[in-house]
């Protein structure tokens, strides 16, 4: 294992020290509870937005804390959901009197820990807590007999859009409805060229041959559904876009197109892939209203990418364009 770390056990804690050192103008860090807060939280009268999950997906979620996005991010160990105590503390700290929304990615551990936190918060304080669970990964068969689809790329777009709506002053019911709408009209599909190494495990989560790639990968190094021979970028783009278009009717609306890197793929390849995706969408007659290209929801040093397509309307485009000022995403201010 070659990593820029001191001790595998201290990776999350020492990274949070760095976040604080780099971004203390916008965020503050509760090191004991491993929570990154927006510096001016709680914002009076604004719905509080909390997300969280295992570490190793940076900049998600801690990099999305700040004006126009999240009020707090709860950081778990690498690829391990945070614990209820963290979400409890964050819920109380960001409530500005308008209630709190938990943004949860659909993984068994994340859902259980957020559920326990919501139960405990309801029992201990009067804060109104709602939750939205993202589950946009078309690689997973959506069935009552599995844990359901994983929450992936849509989570990033949702945090930006719902963050803007909360900043605008929309109330908790409107925010919940908006979050569910966004999750319902976005789909994602990912792929990997290499595995990744969890620091505590010390060796790659899975092995991929020199001429192989994994289609339908998750964001935790969990293997995908198909292992296939390496192919040109235009074919890989089709393998990602086609299952998305087959899963949801994208006709009649533009999309926000998100080309995400898994952490180990350079931007030169992500832009090349974005071009391939844009060509495919052009052929399908789907206009691109806005786009995002870069490493935003990663899987440590995994090489690969994911495509997320979110059906947009005027309201979503307006929310997308609204100012945002976080360590990971900043425009309009």
């Amino acid at each position: 294992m070659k990593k820029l770390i001191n001790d595998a056990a201290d990776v999350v804690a020492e990274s949070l020290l760095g976040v604080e050192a780099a971004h203390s103008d916008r965020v503050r860090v509760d090191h004991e509870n491993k929570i990154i807060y927006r510096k001016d939280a709680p914002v009076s009268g604004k719905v509080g937005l909390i997300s969280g999950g295992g570490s190793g997906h940076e900049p998600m979620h801690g990099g999305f804390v700040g004006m126009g996005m999240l009020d707090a991010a709860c950081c778990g160990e690498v690829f391990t959901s945070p614990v209820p105590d963290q979400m409890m503390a964050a819920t109380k700290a960001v409530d500005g009197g308008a209630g709190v929304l938990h943004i949860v990615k659909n993984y068994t551990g994340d859902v259980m820990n957020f559920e326990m936190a919501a139960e405990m918060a309801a029992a201990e304080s009067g804060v109104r807590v709602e939750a939205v669970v993202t589950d946009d990964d078309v690689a997973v068969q959506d069935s009552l007999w599995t844990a359901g689809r994983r929450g992936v790329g849509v989570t990033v777009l949702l945090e930006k859009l719902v963050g803007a709506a909360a900043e605008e002053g929309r109330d908790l019911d409107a925010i919940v409805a908006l979050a569910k709408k966004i999750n319902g009209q976005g789909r994602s599909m990912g792929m990997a060229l290499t595995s990744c190494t969890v620091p505590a495990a010390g060796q790659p989560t899975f092995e991929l041959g020199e001429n192989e790639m994994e289609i339908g990968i998750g964001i935790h190094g969990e293997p995908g559904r198909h292992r296939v021979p390496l192919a040109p970028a235009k074919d890989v783009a089709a393998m990602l876009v086609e299952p998305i278009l087959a899963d949801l009717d994208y006709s009649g609306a533009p999309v926000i197109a998100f080309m995400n890197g898994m952490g180990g793929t350079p931007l030169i390849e992500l832009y090349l892939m974005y071009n391939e995706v844009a060509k495919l969408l052009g052929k399908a007659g789907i206009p691109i209203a806005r786009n995002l290209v870069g490493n935003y929801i990663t899987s440590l040093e995994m090489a690969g990418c994911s495509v997320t397509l979110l059906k947009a309307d005027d309201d979503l485009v307006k929310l997308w364009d609204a100012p945002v000022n976080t360590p990971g995403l900043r425009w309009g201010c």
Partner: protein
Amino acid sequence: MGSEKAAAWMADFAAQIHENAAMLTDLDRQIGDADHGSNMDRGMKAVAAITAADFADDGAFLKKAGMTLVSTVGGASGPLYGTFLMRVGAAWPAEETAEGIGAALRAGLDGIVQRGKAVVGDKTMVDALTPALEAYDAAAGQGAQAALEAAAAACAAGRDGTTPLVARKGRASYLGERSAGVQDPGATSVTMLVEAAARTLG
């Protein structure tokens, strides 16, 4: 009364987890996300550090152990093991009869099923614990020690039985058919818990 039995159970389990952490993580690497051993080891170290003398009885100690796991483990294991021990602790009998201990363990399993919504055959810890509790109840007439030993044997058989199964819960379910052929990490660690019980609670 006192909390010596519960403390001995948890200390035994903590030692088993620590000794087998790499093996548990390796199973999880194959069908999950390569952290089950390290997460459980972190949590059980925190449990092992609880001062037994601070707790009046075994039930109170187990409740504290459960809360400690919820607060330190994360993932799915934290809520599941935490809920199990909190429920076992809450239902722990004032008089430690075979029937009383069995009812407490049953309350723990009910808590796991409620929290995780898994049923037998999903390739989870429920596949080991369910036959363990059935074996316990069948042997309870012969006393707690015999019942716990029967439970441990049935738990291990249930654990072994997870190998050919296709996972329908947790991260392994994303693999579909490819999850078959690997023993479930949760069923593996929970068998250590029941085997530790057979060494300490009888």
